[in-house]
């Protein structure tokens, strides 16, 4: 390997890593606020890519059916729960959140079918379509077990991933997709060619991480999210509803995952089940950040991207094995800090 190849590999690795950064930060965000290790998070990214591809070819994306189904189910559950508790006062607002809002992008997608929205329009619509999925799944799947142990939540998340992959096949079909490049422009620095797309990926990752930071630091809602993450009981005693914060966390995280899906779609062929491996790799980054630190997670995700890039140069068959191989020593190193804390007990 010469310096030139190393530089190309490094560039490639950083671009891949930047995509993992967005998903990794989403993992940390969701875990901090809800204690759910959201295994199906990569699926959200993959579904966004598939949605964008469908819009490009002028089809109604499978996301439409998925969102309609989830919205109806979540609404039914909400109505049933409120009837049982005899707290019907908040029902109109709840219906707005679980039924009307998610169906707005669905309606838009249906109206837009067959028309050319332009690149920006397609990207925006894809993001709008994917955003309700995780919050609705949260309402349907996780809220009834919100007080359960991390292990039970993890089990639910793993099972949900397999269910989502099945649904993905049902709604998106088995074909792989690769979307049009966001841009073909190239530029040259010091005798090496770089694509603007790579730059765009890195820039998007920096911009959205920065926006998230501003949200946390300067808005009451952002502070409420941090408060819930740091001390759920304390937050409830301030009147901060866990259901509200978890919905915000899922919406934000879905946005991050959606953006990474859009960034990855022109570079890699995405299938309905591609999300698992993408998610797991981003997840290695999140574990390097101990599922708690955003900057460390970002660094970890870049590290994973670089590792993957160099590993595929040495042996493309075993690149996945190498990335997961790194997970175990990382977990071990991370768990050392948890030695003195008492493990969870369940009965």
């Amino acid at each position, binding site marked *: 390997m010469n310096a030139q190849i190393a530089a190309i590999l490094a560039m490639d690795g950083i671009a891949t890593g930047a995509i993992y950064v967005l998903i990794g930060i989403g993992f940390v965000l969701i875990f901090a606020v809800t204690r759910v*290790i959201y295994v199906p998070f990569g699926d959200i990214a993959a579904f966004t890519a598939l949605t964008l591809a469908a819009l490009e070819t002028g089809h109604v994306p499978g996301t439409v059916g998925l969102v309609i189904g989830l919205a109806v189910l979540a609404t039914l559950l909400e109505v049933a729960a409120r009837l049982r508790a005899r707290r019907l006062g908040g029902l109109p607002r709840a219906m707005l959140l679980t039924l009307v809002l998610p169906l707005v992008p669905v309606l838009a997608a249906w109206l837009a079918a067959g028309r050319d929205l332009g690149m920006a329009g397609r990207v925006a619509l894809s993001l709008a379509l994917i955003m309700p999925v995780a919050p609705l799944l949260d309402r349907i*799947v996780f809220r*009834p*077990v919100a007080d*359960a142990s*991390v*292990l*039970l939540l*993890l*089990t*639910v998340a*793993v*099972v*949900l991933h*397999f*269910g*989502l*992959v*099945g*649904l993905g*096949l*049902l709604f998106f079909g088995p074909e792989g997709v690769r979307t049009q490049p966001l841009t073909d422009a190239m530029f040259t620095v010091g005798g090496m060619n770089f694509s603007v797309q790579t730059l765009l990926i890195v820039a998007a990752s920096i911009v959205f991480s920065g926006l998230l930071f501003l949200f946390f630091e300067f808005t009451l809602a952002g502070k409420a999210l941090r408060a819930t993450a740091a001390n759920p009981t304390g937050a409830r005693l301030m009147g901060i509803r866990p259901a509200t914060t978890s919905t915000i966390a899922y919406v934000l995280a879905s946005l991050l995952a959606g953006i990474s899906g859009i960034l990855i779609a022109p570079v890699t062929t995405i299938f309905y089940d591609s999300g698992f491996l993408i998610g*797991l790799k981003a997840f290695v980054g999140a*574990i390097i950040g101990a599922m708690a630190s955003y900057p460390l997670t970002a660094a970890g995700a870049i590290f994973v991207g670089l590792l993957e890039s160099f590993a595929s140069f040495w042996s493309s*068959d*075993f690149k*996945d*094995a190498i990335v*997961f*191989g790194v*997970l*175990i020593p990382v*977990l*071990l190193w*991370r*768990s050392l800090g*948890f*030695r*003195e*804390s*008492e*493990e*969870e*007990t*369940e*009965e």
Partner: protein
Amino acid sequence: MTARRLRLLGVVAVALFALAPALVSPFSVTLLNFIGIYALVALGIVLLTGVGGMLSFGQAAFVGVAAYATAWATTAHGWSPWLGLILALVLTAAVATVVGSVTLRLGGHFLSLSTIAWGLAIYFLFGNIDALGHFTGISDVPPIAIGALSLGSGAAIFYLIWGVLIAAWLLAANLLDARQGRAIRALRGGRILVESLGIDAFRIKLATFVLAALLSALSGWLQAHMTRFVSPAPFDATAGIFYLLMAMVGGIGALGGAAVGAAIVTLLRNSIQDYLPLVAPGVAGQLEIVVFSVMFILLLQRARTGLVPLALRYLPAAKPAPVVDARPLPRRPQPPRGEPVLRVEALSRRFGGLVAVNQVSFALGAGEILGLIGPNGAGKTTMFNLITGALRADGGRVLFCGTDITRTPQRHIARAGIARTFQHVKLRPAMSALDNVLLGTYARTRAGFVAGALRLDRGEEAQARFEAMRQLRRIGLADRAFDPAGALPLANQRLLEIARALAADPVLLVLDEPAAGLRRLEKEALARLLVALRGEGLTILLVEHDMDFVMGLVDRCVVMDFGAKLCEGVPVEIRRDVRVQEAYLGSVA
């Protein structure tokens, strides 16, 4: 329904089941065989996850290791399947030991996440190794033969599969009712509790992990020789989820849940494969996993305990074996009265910026009761955790009977003769009061896993039970010996912790707020018990808030405030001390 009628019903059911291969269609026999094979893996998951509290998504990988080992040995090298079995067991145990040694040190959900990682890694290996036929797998695996009798047919292997399953089930049940099994059942109480009983938590976890892997290996071996074909697909992550589903449907906490869960999931899967194409033609294949995910999630939301524990509630409970008189367990010699037992020298411990214990020193002689008092947050419980090794000190020394134990691991301190109770009661609520006290005898007994599973430990077990019953009698709970500890009132649970500590035959008894929540008469009884123990030469260190209780009981007091020692003396002096009144008894607002 009476117990006798139930038993009769059981016998009839078993007899019918044994005749199944002659009564039902070959396809149904095949289904039953798969149920048995899956139930073995689920049994391992019940032991590992339900009883031991270690959640694994990766058990399918162990099934695969064993299946590939025997398939490779019998096809490529022409070994007998029985040699293949030995190879499968040895290889799986080796893999499990290596994987377990690395990952079982991980806490809580990190452990479970690592099971996904190594589960995937092993699966990818199967598909990428030349000798294992890549993703096409290995075919023409020979059937198992017993002498001249080939078990090639479904009906023939039926008896082997269910024989193995029932044997594994019985051995597991025996084990859980013995010394090491109780240690496994204690694991979910947390490391602090387990190590305070002198149990090596990591060793027990590893043993449980290997045991579960061996059950998976048996399943893999049977599967390879029954289907006569091995490929990576049945050992992927989805399979791991299905095994977990089986264990959870049946009841993750009940051994019987394994077979029930395996049966339900297998039959359901079969009928879904039959009926789904009728309901949703064209997409049935995709929907299968969706349907199962939905069912699994509903199960986790609505009925986490599973079916068997639910059903057991309606059946008469099995009568526990009575405790019989036995030779007492040997006791350790107590140091002569007045001999120094515990010496704390300038002990310190910080948490972040807070100094919880600051340069505290005191000493304790054999046969003495010392009270450690002070307001809430004064550092008393931290002090206890430092002495018992549950926390590491930042500075200073602890000497026990002349030996420096400042850096000694918790379980070795427990084995050396310091037994403790906890401020927040740490009992295993689902275990009987007797079993909880039996945990205390762990360090005084030696039966291993094999002895427990084969019931070779009954002599020692009788001694331990006799000892535990003696301690229960002492605290006045003998009549509740077989009730779950969690069903006792809180005050009795505190007493039960004392009985558990006494069952360890300690030199020094360390009690954290033993009288909290007790009523007056109960407090008097507790005080009498502690005085009697002192009379037998036991040394006692206790934290307590009730001043009347403390002052009437202890020989001396050490008063702590803000992590530091305020003063030390006999109760009369302490009561008179102005500083103590200010700090502890409540100042005038």
